[in-house]
């Protein structure tokens, strides 16, 4: 029916354009059996005044007669139809031009509406009273609603959709809102006539339900049709506003990692957003989809904030001094003695900006929405668990940065409060750990340092150690596969904590200084753990055991790093053996009270018991005894030779101070080692200078007279000598190995024999004969002195003393002196490697290989060809025999040359 009417309207429009239109068109009556023709000059269909009385009479005429009824019925129907026609004609929606201005007057203009319209409207609104007999009546409001709907879909929607194609999101949204506003104004304008009439004629408040139903319908149409296409634009604009209000970096400056404080800009953005929400709401776009979008954006904002504002901020610095009252805003669960900066900031942000925005926007959408206190707590909880997620992913770096990352651990401790979260944390961390650390690229030292940092960090995170145990196992397993773990731990325990200037060394790339510091600070409780902790009624920080603790769980309060390292990585034997080796080296290399060694020894005794460490005790005692013996002998020798001072000690080590000009009395300090208790010492024998030999002999006599049952064996190559060389233009003082001293001293004697002739020249062969020293060792010593600019190689294999330096050399020498002051220990160690790393079969292991060969030839078979020896060595030495047959042959050749072996028919054989 409506469609038919529209068609009519269109036809009439065509007609009117040709013939001119009357001011108001008339409906063609559906049926006009009783109406007469319209009076001349009167517009057809105009409501006739004379009708009114009959209208009013109609109810009374109802029962008059059937004819009369029929007539009345027809009259009522006609009247209805005419009223309908008038009203719909007036209210018909005009076309909607695309660029229609907001201020353009709305049609129909209020002035153009006359009384006829209201009379007609009266008929339509109250058909029961006005035209009771009309059989076909309709709801004018439903008609209006449906014409609005059609109008919107056909004319307004295409405009809005076409907007999307051009312009920025802001402009598009603004324009769309304007269009919708205009359209809506138009729709409501038509309705307002009806509303006014209802208000004027009907009972008070009758219009409210009509209006609200209309609003509901039209919003439904708008949000169903517009919201979807506009969603992208809407989200973009919303997101931008929200991030500006919350201080998050926008897309243009996404690189900045800071949260902007609240300022004019954010206030402006807030106003803009609220205005936008208001207008969206007024045009019906603030429906469910808007709310979902807003919620999603807020959700993303929180994550964004956590990532921007907290990532990499782990320190505790400058936290609470200036804002003591901030605790009030913390999440209840986050109340803690030291809440970290990030948690505090986060809670503050949620409280002051995030929740505020949520309250404002939601309050605007519907006054019924309120954000309660529990909601705010919920926001904080959510944000903190997001922070925790971030921290879990950062945990490896946090651990590595210990102790500069305590704040981050506090964040985590606040948030990691369920077994699931704890499990998640350990899983993520274990993965990172094996990815980043447990591979051949990481040095053992680095792994151990990380392990120490892990122990600290996890202890700060969770006193119960349950978490640590879970992540540390793979690390321990991996460390056990590293050969040098134990050595690094022990040498770390024994390392210096202060450098030459007395400044504390905090980190080192060579040694595990951390352990020595721990040991020195005594911060660690050494000894059995306090097991009666459960009974400490005064412990206000007591916490129950964590629920996810394993059955073998034992609480322990301190981090006990040394204990953990010693207890977990390697067996007791390995530790003790390694300790013995390193302690042996230290004892031989240095003098002094050996406090550190004693301390470590005590520590190990507590852990392993006295018995296994007996050898170490003996070693320490040997050194102490040696000191006493030295004193004794010095006195005795002084008594004996008056001017000859010699100090001597024992089986193995000679420490000599060698002054070339004053040859008479280099003091000799001897360390006597009890062979059975000391680790195997590799030593090279060589001829020591004569005066030293005499001192040694004197000492040995004295020693054997005191301890008759013991035999003294000298180990010449262990020990140090202080050498002072007076050359023509300079004096060189060096702390060197004994074998280096022996080599240079042999130059000294030659010089004195030659008198003032040419500088002393020695060939390697001469020196080998004279010193009975292994050639590799000799070469290494010569090289050492050449580097010190004391000797020079005048011809291959021939060396002489460099008595005067030319200018260049002098500069080099000065530079060297400066450098060696800075790092005096360095070249010592490099000399050691020089000793071991020689051509062919190395010195260091040569002794062992020789033992193998001797054992083989003595027991297995008295004579063997080269191949068989090589094969035996390769198969029987656990670590493998790394040398080629040629190298072995060369080595065996040397043994043949020195008379230990003989060659019989291509087979080697021990010489009897």
């Amino acid at each position, binding site marked *: 029916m409506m469609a038919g009417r529209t068609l009519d309207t269109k036809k009439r429009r065509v007609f009117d354009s040709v013939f001119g239109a009357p001011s108001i068109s008339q409906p063609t009556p559906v049926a006009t059996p009783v109406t007469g023709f319209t009076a001349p000059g009167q517009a057809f269909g105009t409501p006739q005044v004379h009708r009114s009385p009959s209208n009013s009479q109609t109810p009374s005429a109802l029962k008059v007669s059937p004819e009369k009824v029929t007539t009345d019925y027809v009259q009522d129907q006609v009247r209805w139809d005419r009223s309908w026609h008038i009203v719909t004609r007036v209210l018909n929606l005009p076309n909607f031009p695309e660029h229609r201005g907001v201020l353009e007057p709305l049609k129909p203009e209020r002035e153009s509406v006359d009384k006829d319209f209201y009379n007609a409207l009266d008929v339509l609104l109250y058909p029961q009273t006005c035209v009771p007999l009309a059989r076909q009546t309709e709801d004018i409001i439903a008609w209006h609603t449906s014409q609005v709907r059609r109008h919107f879909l056909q004319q307004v929607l295409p405009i809005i959709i076409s907007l999307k194609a051009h312009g920025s999101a802001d402009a598009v949204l603004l324009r769309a809102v304007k269009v919708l506003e205009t359209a809506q104004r138009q729709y409501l304008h038509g309705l307002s006539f009806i509303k006014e009439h209802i208000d004027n004629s009907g009972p008070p408040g009758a219009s409210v339900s009509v209006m609200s139903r209309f609003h509901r319908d039209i919003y439904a149409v708008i949000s169903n049709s517009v919201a979807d296409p506009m969603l992208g634009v809407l989200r973009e604009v919303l997101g931008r506003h929200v991030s500006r209000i919350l201080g998050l970096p926008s897309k243009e400056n996404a690189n900045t990692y800071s949260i902007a404080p609240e300022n004019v800009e954010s206030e402006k953005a807030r106003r803009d957003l609220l205005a936008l929400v208001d207008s969206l709401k007024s045009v019906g776009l603030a429906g469910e989809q808007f709310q979902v979008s807003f919620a999603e954006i807020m959700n993303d904002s929180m994550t964004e904030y956590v990532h921007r504002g907290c990532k990499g901020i782990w320190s505790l610095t400058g936290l609470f001094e200036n804002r003591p009252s901030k605790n009030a805003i913390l999440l209840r669960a986050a109340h803690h003695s030291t809440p970290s900066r990030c948690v505090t900031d986060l809670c503050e942000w949620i409280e002051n900006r995030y929740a505020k925005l949520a309250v404002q926007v939601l309050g605007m959408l519907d006054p019924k929405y309120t954000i309660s206190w529990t909601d705010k707590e919920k926001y904080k909880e959510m944000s903190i668990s997001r922070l925790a997620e971030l921290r879990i992913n950062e945990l490896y770096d946090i651990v590595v940065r210990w102790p500069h990352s305590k704040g981050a651990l506090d964040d985590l401790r606040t948030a990691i409060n369920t077994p699931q979260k704890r499990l998640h944390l350990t899983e993520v961390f274990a993965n990172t750990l094996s990815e980043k650390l447990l591979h*051949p690229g990481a040095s053992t030292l680095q792994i151990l340092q990380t392990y120490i940092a892990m122990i600290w960090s996890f202890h700060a995170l969770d006193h119960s150690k349950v978490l640590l145990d879970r992540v540390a196992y793979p690390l321990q*397993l991996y460390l*056990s*596969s*590293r*050969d*040098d773990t134990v*050595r690094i731990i022990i040498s770390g325990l024994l390392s210096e904590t202060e450098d030459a200037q007395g400044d504390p060394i905090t980190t080192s790339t060579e040694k595990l200084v951390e352990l020595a510091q721990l040991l020195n600070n005594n911060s660690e409780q050494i000894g059995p753990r306090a097991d009666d902790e459960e009974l400490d009624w005064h412990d206000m920080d007591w916490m129950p055991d964590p629920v996810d603790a394993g059955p073998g769980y034992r609480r322990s309060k301190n981090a006990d790093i040394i204990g953990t390292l010693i207890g977990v990585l*390697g*067996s007791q*034997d*390995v530790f003790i*053996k*390694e300790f*013995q*080796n390193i302690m042996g080296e230290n004892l031989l290399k240095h003098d002094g009270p050996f406090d550190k060694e004693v301390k470590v020894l005590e520590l190990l005794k507590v852990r392993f018991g006295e018995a296994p460490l007996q*050898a170490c005790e003996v070693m320490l005692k040997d050194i102490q005894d040696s000191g006493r013996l030295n004193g004794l002998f010095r006195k005795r020798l002084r008594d004996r030779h008056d001017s000859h001072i010699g100090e001597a000690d024992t089986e193995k080590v000679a420490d000599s101070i060698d002054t070339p000009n004053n040859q008479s009395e280099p003091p000799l300090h001897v360390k006597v080692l009890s062979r*059975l*208790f000391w*680790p*195997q010492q590799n030593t090279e024998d060589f001829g020591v200078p004569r005066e030293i030999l005499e001192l040694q002999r004197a000492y040995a006599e004295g020693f054997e007279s005191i301890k008759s049952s013991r035999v003294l064996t000298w180990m010449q190559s262990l020990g140090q000598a202080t050498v002072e060389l007076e050359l023509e233009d300079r004096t060189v003082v060096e702390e060197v190995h004994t074998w280096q001293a022996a080599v240079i001293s042999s130059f000294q004697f030659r010089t004195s024999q030659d008198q003032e002739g040419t500088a002393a020249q020695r060939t390697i062969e001469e020196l080998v004969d004279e010193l009975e020293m292994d050639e590799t060792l000799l070469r290494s010593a010569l090289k050492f002195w050449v580097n010190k600019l004391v000797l020079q190689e005048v011809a291959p294999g021939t060396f002489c003393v460099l008595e005067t330096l030319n200018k260049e050399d002098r500069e080099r020498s000065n530079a060297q002196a400066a450098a060696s002051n800075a790092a005096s220990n360095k070249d010592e160690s490099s000399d050691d490697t020089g000793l071991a790393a020689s051509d062919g079969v190395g010195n260091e*292991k040569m002794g*062992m290989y020789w*033992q*193998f060969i*001797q*054992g*083989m030839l*003595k*027991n*297995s*078979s*008295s*004579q063997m060809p080269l191949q068989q020896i090589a*094969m*035996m060595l*390769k*198969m*029987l*030495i*656990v*670590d*493998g025999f790394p040398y080629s047959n040629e190298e072995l042959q060369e080595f065996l050749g040397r043994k043949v040359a020195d008379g230990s072996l003989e060659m019989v028919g291509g087979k080697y054989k021990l010489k009897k």
Partner: protein
Amino acid sequence: MNNYDMEDTQNSAPGALPAVQASKLAPRRGPDAQSTTKRLQTELMQLMTSSAPGISAFPSAADNLLAWAATIEGPDDTPYQGLTFKLSFAFPLNYPYAPPTVLFKTPIYHPNVDFSGRICLDILKDKWTAAYNIQTVLLSLQSLLGEPNNASPLNGEAAELWDKDPEEFKRKVLGRHRDVDDE
């Protein structure tokens, strides 16, 4: 006995768990060929790096670690002074939980050794424990040369002569001894 065999744990190939640590990490299993071989290798290294004077031992062949040959030099101030004795060691598969079978290959005149070289020594029989090793066995045998256990002789005549006629004993020792060469 001091074990200064640091070499074997310090320089093994990367990746391979050193024996001591490996056994710590893995649950202890019953003796098997693997652990016996390992143990013998360790003992060999130990013997080579810290040898005691007058004794030496070495596997007879590279491919069988269960058979060793050993040498003992007769201690000074005993009838065996200046003599060298060769022995064979045969290790059971469950070594060190069972003692090796030790025989003198060099003919020896001794109260506790019979003419086929079998030895009567308690630590090689019922007193054996896993704490003993090749070196301790050899040292015990070396001391047995100087201090025979005449209470339970395998060679009664020798036991008798040891006390009654040292001269005759020494003569018999030298008479019986002859160098063997295994080739």
